[in-house]
């Protein structure tokens, strides 16, 4: 009986007519065709989203190269120093009150000018002496200015001014003296957030090597931080908090390029590592 049951052609379960079966077949074929077209569109279509993904593959390994003068390979490394802040020079301000002092003689000069005509031989020409006074006064002012200036600060400023070491075709936002040159939005984003990525020094060496956290962020068209969430915890609450704080302190973020705005609005994931991720 059992064998018979297997060899017997199956009987239709439902009472479909041949016309309805034909319609169903067409519907399945049509649906498959539509899916095929959509699939082909995604696979072979040359549109912006695909370009963004290709770009991303390059971006992940990008390091922004610093703009500056190339350093000789045989020289020992120098630490990058922040550029001296533009500040009001006390030297330029302080001498100003001293300037009125030489002005009274100028008035006498004006009055005395006719005098040489009457007694040119007896009295020396007051004009040169006034000039000399003026020069001496200026020199004194300069000396006072030099004394008032922090000489060490001048040296530091000079040193810092020479600090622009990097590569001639680097970026002003770059942080590496050497590296790959392919600047991109992701590179910018990474460098920008790294500026606010601070960790407490109490972390041990092992923790510095080991800790990793993933932070998912959504970025608005003008660099707004729409959302931020730790998606993969490091297991260290302080580190996770620092990661979150780095993103929050970095607002506004660099504005995503027009063609990538949809992608960054949807969200990107950042991997934070204390020293290096590899």
């Amino acid at each position, binding site marked *: 009986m059992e064998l018979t049951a297997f060899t017997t052609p199956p009987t239709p379960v439902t009472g479909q007519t041949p016309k309805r079966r034909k319609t169903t077949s067409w519907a399945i074929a049509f649906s*498959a065709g539509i*899916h*095929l077209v*959509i*699939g*082909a569109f*995604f*696979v072979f279509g040359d549109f912006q*989203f*695909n370009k963004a*993904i290709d770009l*991303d593959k390059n*971006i*992940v390994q990008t390091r922004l190269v610093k703009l500056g003068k190339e350093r*000789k*390979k*045989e*020289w*020992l*490394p*120098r*630490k990058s*120093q922040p550029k001296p802040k533009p500040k009001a020079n006390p030297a330029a301000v302080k001498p100003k009150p001293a300037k009125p002092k030489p002005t009274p003689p100028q008035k006498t000069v004006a009055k005395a000018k006719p005098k040489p005509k009457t007694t040119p031989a007896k009295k020396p020409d007051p004009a040169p002496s006034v000039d000399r006074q003026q020069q001496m006064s200026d020199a004194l002012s300069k000396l006072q200015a030099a004394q008032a200036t922090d000489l060490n600060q001048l*040296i*530091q400023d000079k*040193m810092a001014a020479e600090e622009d070491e990097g590569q001639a075709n680097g970026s002003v936002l770059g942080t590496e003296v050497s590296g790959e040159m392919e600047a991109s939005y*992701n590179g910018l*984003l*990474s460098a920008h*957030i*790294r500026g606010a*990525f*601070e*960790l*407490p*020094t*109490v*972390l*041990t*060496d092992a923790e510095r090597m080991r800790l990793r956290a*993933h932070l*998912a962020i959504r970025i608005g068209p003008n660099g707004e931080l729409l959302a931020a969430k730790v998606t993969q915890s490091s297991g260290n*609450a*302080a580190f996770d*908090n*620092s990661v979150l704080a*780095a993103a929050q302190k970095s607002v506004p973020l660099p504005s995503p390029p027009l063609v990538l705005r949809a992608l960054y609005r*949807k*969200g*990107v*994931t*950042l*991997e*934070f*590592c*204390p*020293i*290096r*991720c590899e």
Partner: protein
Amino acid sequence: MKRIITLICFGLLLSTTAFANPLIRVEGASFKPLPIAVTDAQISKNSGLKKTANELVERIRQDLDFTGVFQILDPKGFLITPDQESFGVKDIQYESWRNVGADALLKFSMSRQGDVYVVDVYAYDVGTQKSRFKRNYKAPSKMIFKLAHLISDDVFEAFTGEKGVMSQPIAAIKRVGKTKHVVQMDVDGQKIKQLSKGGRLNLLPSYAPNAKKILYTSYRYDNPDLFELDVATRKYKRLSARPGLNTGGVFSPDGSQIAVTLSMKGNTDIYLLSADGKDAKRLTDAWGIDTSPSWSPDGSKIAFVSSRSGNPHIFVMDKDGSNQKRLTFKGKYNQTPRWSPRGTHIVFSARDERNKYDIFLMDVRSSVITRITQDQSNNEDPAFAANGRLVVFTSTRDGARDLYLSNLDGSHQRRITQGGFYWTPTWAPFQQ
């Protein structure tokens, strides 16, 4: 049909992959010291302890500052006095401490029982509102300020999980009159004690692994001989008086051997001696001067300076003299390598292109060199702290030649001696 479905699924899979989030790496955090509020000690009124308690707390603040790990907040800005808050975890007004920028809080109570001071120390995490550390100390009045170093080390360990080095003394050469002597001092530059005697020149001190003895070179008998000094008794013993140089002796980490620079055969080379100074075995035999040996913490390798390539550079070899390899290729005058107790780095001083000596750090695995000091006159003679977190070195930045501490990234540089002339400091290791 199956093929069509497979193709559709494949296409959809690819398209899904194409939309996956990119992973962007953010590497290389800047490390900032942990802001800690160190309150004055709570004492009972009319106990007469105020002065001592204030000095003790001030020394603890200074020690914690020297560690480079903490940022000591100015107590003038605190919103709560010690009397307004007790020590229970739930009694702490965390919001007030958070408002003054504290991530951690350190509190004390102090009393006196006869000649013994009793100090209770409490540490809290302000963020998590939990107790981090609680301990009771008793110390005779003579030892009260030594207690500051002990408390600082315990607090350091409570927050970092690593041993503190504030109780570990530093030895160095100091100019005394017309000569130079071996001295030992606390990390804060206090209690400087002269260890070597006589009127002759003494050089290059180096602690034994048990920190109870110091190797050094002395011209006591005209020749630069290698001596061993007992720190407690100040008794000395001559270990090597071979003709020529007997300099830069350093004990192996197990204390069984001494690597030293000798010139008894004409050329200046590195030799290995037994701990009593006998059985010299030559390790280097190259053209040029080989000097300044430094053991790796596992005792398998020795870093040293060699001029065999023209200028002095840092080299490394196995402890039997094999596998000699040049480590530095930058700089013109690299000297005084010291291996980190963690084994990961070698610190050395080098002359840069501006003809200034500075302190540099080399990652042993990658050979990448980073700079510790820069643009602050000459900085030389670096040595690691026993926990590998700090470096002590000499600097002429303030006119004299004083001792300074620095974090390995060059941050938090602090002067510890005041207006003296010091050379070649060495930090006592943890006693084994």
